[in-house]
């Protein structure tokens, strides 16, 4: 007597398991008559559409480098200034006489920051073609 094949085993499983029997016996549906045409219409539409505009890396790279450099330098300066100030926070008492030149120095920094902002604004307008 021959051994049951895998197909026989599957058939037996289907016949003995109602869930398999129901779920495996589903009648297929047919695509609607206009399905092929509508798929091809969308495909044709996509093929006719112009290729997406590539990002203007050549024009953007100088701006990105400038912004990265500025932020990097700013972060470096901030940390350089902040660490000694934090260390001296507990021990140093504020002295009004030595603090007098500080506002002038701050004004210079503010002017510098404004200049950088203006430069960034001009650059961004130029990149977007509005200059």
């Amino acid at each position, binding site marked *: 007597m021959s051994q049951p094949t895998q197909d026989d085993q*599957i058939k037996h499983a*289907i016949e*003995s398991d*109602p*869930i*398999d*029997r*129901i*779920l*495996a*016996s*589903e*009648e*297929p*549906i*047919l*695509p*609607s008559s206009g*399905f*092929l045409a*509508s*798929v*091809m219409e*969308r*495909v*044709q539409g*996509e*093929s006719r559409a112009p290729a997406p505009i590539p990002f203007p890396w050549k024009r953007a790279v100088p701006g990105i480098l400038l912004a990265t450099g500025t932020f990097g330098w700013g972060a470096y300066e901030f940390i350089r200034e902040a660490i000694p100030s934090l260390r001296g926070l507990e021990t140093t008492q504020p002295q009004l006489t030595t603090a007098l030149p500080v506002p002038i120095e701050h004004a210079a920094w503010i002017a510098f920051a404004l200049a950088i902002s203006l430069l960034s604004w001009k650059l961004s307008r130029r990149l977007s073609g509005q200059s």
Partner: protein
Amino acid sequence: MNVESLSTTGVPAVPPPDSDAADVQRVLAGDVQAFEGIVRRWQGPLVNMAWRYCRDRSRAEEMAQEAFLRAWRGLSQWRQEASFSTWLFALAANVFRSELKRFPTVNVPIEDISEPSASATQHDDFATKTNNETLRRAVLALPQRYREPLVLFYFHEMDVGAAARTMGLPEGTLKARLSRARALLKKRFPKLSRPCAISEIIPARTGKEVQG
């Protein structure tokens, strides 16, 4: 799904072996119209696969259309190491999964689905069809983790390997999830666990088209 089974979905039973590869080459060379051959051959399987994911005819066609469009865009990514059908089904499964995540089908929890009545007999065609449809819809109420393996297993005519390839899972993982899914269904439909219940619930195949 193997090639022979395509005949049940309204497409040629045995397409020429290299027809997909040839059409893909033509499309990649710029012949957009060659994609029609691919759609013609695979529209049946893809619409049926989508139907099993959502059981809504118009939505199934929308999802299948989206899958064809993604296939069109990514045709150059088919490496020809796997068969075209394996690549297409895996892509379609991804599309269907994400579409159903964005707009889930309205399903009742599996606990709220009542078990089909045992009064249906082979002569009561309408009742048996309704009962079977209840079970099929209950599949959609399973947790996603178990639902998809079950859907793909029966779509691929109980071929574990094909279902695993479509999902990109090892066969062992798929088998484990399949087993859990069937256990959940059997727990919900205890009458179906008894072989003697077959005559109560299973009809002879009617050969009529499924209503969308």
